[in-house]
């Protein structure tokens, strides 16, 4: 089992098709395969035990991924925005790596004792020499990719994704060569995000050309979509919010057919605006984790339209759900004692399937005796099997003796027309253990009366779920991939940061 099998199939099935980059000068499936052979040879010649990729997304990324697979070593995409200290610790764990890094990172890699080359130098090395028939890569169960979690709730952990996990994910969710020749996918998340890895594999296998956006801006994204006639795109919610909120932009995207989003909670205001602005586009909400090789449940285009048009509150609510599990995944919602809960009750989300790794470098497997993995996400299923994700278990606020999920309160705040963004956290409190505080970002042009907003929450939820304080900030601290940095929110609140209302 090896992901190179997917590339070999692509090269065999539609070898002349451009699959990476711009139509005019991109790589065909056959060329991508040749470069992966040359890249693997360079890695083997260096005696490296992994490929470390520290740079923005671009054509070198898929080449590096398949070169690693062919050489039988894992690809380790690393967050190029990490602080010096954190990056140094991470690099120290990979002394035998073949490093590919953007110009600005070379010095840091040198300091860590790693010889590095830029993506352009790597591509040149891969194109050099004999690119002929390689030996067949081993049918092993070796690690294909090692991705460090973003570490928003704890120290970053290295998630091990084996060839078996990734190939199962692709075979379970994509049909070979199903994309038309005109289709093109635009990827906006950085290489160290699981969606960037799965995107390479699923688009290649479908026969869909994929283009990477090195760094996201609303205008840049819209320009590439129009210029390259992009048909499919994946964004995180903050990107869609920025595209919808930016003033004076031409938001026409005539070629776009499907927009997938995931990675964080989508504010209702943003998705509703996008549905209205782009009625011709199919929206897909994907829920998954690094540990599950990307998507485990999907809210598809028909689900979006049905929910958006419905007056039945239960159906309408599904617009904010993560849809239904993909066929290759089994999902259980369990209580804290491990009992499986019926539809409608909230608990911990556990999943099982070939694509689920649940394995951390140096720590082994975290799946239970039945093969289920604890996502550490809270959620519930409705009567129709739609999954509602209610945030991380670790974010639960314990106020007095009551466990409160911030997501429920955040949902109410985010549905208020004056609120653009919202987060609810537990702040240390002598009397209650934790008290509930909220930070909101006002919608463009809106003035917010925080007391009236508290009353609004109280009218929809009970008093014990009403924030003890709501403050207004100009923006929320988030990772570049859209995850809220809750720890920074709590720090900001306890430091007595002043409201700007």
């Amino acid at each position: 089992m090896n992901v190179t099998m997917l590339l070999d199939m692509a090269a065999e099935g539609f070898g002349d098709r451009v699959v990476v980059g711009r139509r005019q000068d991109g790589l065909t499936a056959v060329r991508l395969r040749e470069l992966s052979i040359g890249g693997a040879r360079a890695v083997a010649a260096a005696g490296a035990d992994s490929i470390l990729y520290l740079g923005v997304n671009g054509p070198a990324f898929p080449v590096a991924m398949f070169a690693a697979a062919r050489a039988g070593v894992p690809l380790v995409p690393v967050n190029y925005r990490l602080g010096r200290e954190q990056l140094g610790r991470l690099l120290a764990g990979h002394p035998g790596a073949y490093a590919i890094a953007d110009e600005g990172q070379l010095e840091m890699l040198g300091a860590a004792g790693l010889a590095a080359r830029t993506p352009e130098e790597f591509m040149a090395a891969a194109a050099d020499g004999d690119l002929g028939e390689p030996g067949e890569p081993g049918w092993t169960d070796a690690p294909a990719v090692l991705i460090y979690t973003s570490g928003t709730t704890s120290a970053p952990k290295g998630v091990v994704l084996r060839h078996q996990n990734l190939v199962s994910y692709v075979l379970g969710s994509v049909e070979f060569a199903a994309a038309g020749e005109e289709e093109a996918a635009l990827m906006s998340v950085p290489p160290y995000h699981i969606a960037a890895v799965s995107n390479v594999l699923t688009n290649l296998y479908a026969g869909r050309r994929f283009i990477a956006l090195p760094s996201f801006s609303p205008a840049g994204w819209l320009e590439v979509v129009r210029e390259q006639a992009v048909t499919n795109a994946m964004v995180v919610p903050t990107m869609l919010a920025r595209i919808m909120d930016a003033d004076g932009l031409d938001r026409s995207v005539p070629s776009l057919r499907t927009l997938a989003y995931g990675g964080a909670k989508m504010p209702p205001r943003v998705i509703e605006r996008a549905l209205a602005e782009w009625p011709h586009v199919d929206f897909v909400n994907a829920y998954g984790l690094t540990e599950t090789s990307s998507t485990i449940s999907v809210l598809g285009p028909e689900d979006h339209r049905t929910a958006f048009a419905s007056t039945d509150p239960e159906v309408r609510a599904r617009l904010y759900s993560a849809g239904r599990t993909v066929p290759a995944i089994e999902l259980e919602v369990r209580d804290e004692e491990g009992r499986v809960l019926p539809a409608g009750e909230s608990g911990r989300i556990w999943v099982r399937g070939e694509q689920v790794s649940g394995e951390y470098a140096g720590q082994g497997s975290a799946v239970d005796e039945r093969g289920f993995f604890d996502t550490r996400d809270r959620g519930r299923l409705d009567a129709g099997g739609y999954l509602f994700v209610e945030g991380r278990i670790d974010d639960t606020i314990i106020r007095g003796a009551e466990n409160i999920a911030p997501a429920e309160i955040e949902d109410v705040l985010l549905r208020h027309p004056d609120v653009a963004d919202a987060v609810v956290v537990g702040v240390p409190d002598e009397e209650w253990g934790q008290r509930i505080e909220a930070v909101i970002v006002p919608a463009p042009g809106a003035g917010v009366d925080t007391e009236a907003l508290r009353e609004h929450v109280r009218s929809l939820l009970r008093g014990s779920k009403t924030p003890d304080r709501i403050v207004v900030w100009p923006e929320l601290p988030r990772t570049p991939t859209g995850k809220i940095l809750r720890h920074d929110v709590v720090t900001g609140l306890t430091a007595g940061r002043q409201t700007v209302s």
Partner: protein
Amino acid sequence: MKLRPGRQVASTVDGTRMIVVRAPGDDIVLTCGGAEMVDPAEAGTGEGGVADPGQQEGTVLGKRYTHDGLGLELLCTKPGQGTVAVDGEPLVLKEAKPLPASD
């Protein structure tokens, strides 16, 4: 042989390769062109013999083949001329229903 998801099987009479997507976990004898399929490591040893001329329906790259009674699904990773079968019963080409592209 025991078929586990992710396991690859190879024909001994032509270039056919299949990967197991779904399997019941029991021992199953798969044939291609009438000859038993083997682990790819054992393929191409020249002991394949001759294909049954009556089992030459062929397979198509990337297509799925199923045996509903057994809960078996294979995917063709290298096409060949032989018919893939269990107990002489040819597997059936599965009509694909793609999921919406999610990433």
